[in-house]
């Protein structure tokens, strides 16, 4: 190790944090401590998620049925309109 490396070792020697660091960290860590969720709360949360998912799925299904009905109605109306147009064109000729 040459002179520069010796100087670097000295310049980068370990330092201590400010006084009371341990106490501050301990107190803050204790405040942050997360208490585990009781099992029955976990089960209730899971049930709520499942119900919400099922509700959302049902709403999506209803939406699909309504969409299909609208599309069918439009197809029927379009067919009838075509027929009327053909009739009118025939009468004019």
């Amino acid at each position, binding site marked *: 190790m*040459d*002179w*520069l*490396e010796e*100087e*670097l*070792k*000295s*310049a*980068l*020697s*370990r*330092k*201590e*944090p*400010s006084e009371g*660091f*341990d106490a*501050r*960290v*301990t107190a*803050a*860590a*204790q405040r*942050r*401590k997360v208490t585990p969720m009781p099992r029955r709360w976990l089960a209730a949360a899971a049930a709520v998620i499942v119900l919400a998912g099922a509700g959302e799925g049902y709403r999506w299904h209803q939406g699909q049925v309504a969409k299909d009905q609208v599309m069918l109605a439009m197809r029927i109306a379009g067919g009838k309109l075509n027929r009327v147009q053909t009739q009118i064109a025939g009468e004019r000729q």
Partner: protein
Amino acid sequence: MTGLQRATETGYDFGELMREHRSMVFSVAYHFLRDRDQAEEVAQDVFFSLHRNLAAVQSTAHAGNWLRKVAVQRSIDAARRRTRRPQVSLEDVAEPSTRPTSGDPMLGDLLRKLIATLPEGPRMAMVLRYQEDLDPAEIAEVMEIPLGTVKSHIQRSLVLLREKLARRGVGER
């Protein structure tokens, strides 16, 4: 005694681990960031992580290695987030009015300032090499970068520091 002070699963004491490793964790952050308040924030965050993972501690040496790795990562993250203080460039480091000599506190201060001007990779490699006395293979493992990159970071940084010191009239003894 609460779960905070003692992990019943392993028997490792949080307070003792903190006392043993706090100067290492704080110094990695301090020498890298050159900001005492920010270094304390990083160190605090690192020990929160230890507290959350206390049950996984296998030995004090394992805790030390783990803390060093987390301190390195958190320090780099903090430096990337930092916007309030512009990075110091080499040109911003004032020329000392007198020539610092070996063993002079002024030389130590100048070296710390010059290291602060290095890019993050080389800077962290230098901190781990000279603060923690790690060899390049250990640094590569801690920083999760190739060994060749660590060697090049250290060699280039030493060349750069020698040049800058020579320009300031500081040379070999």
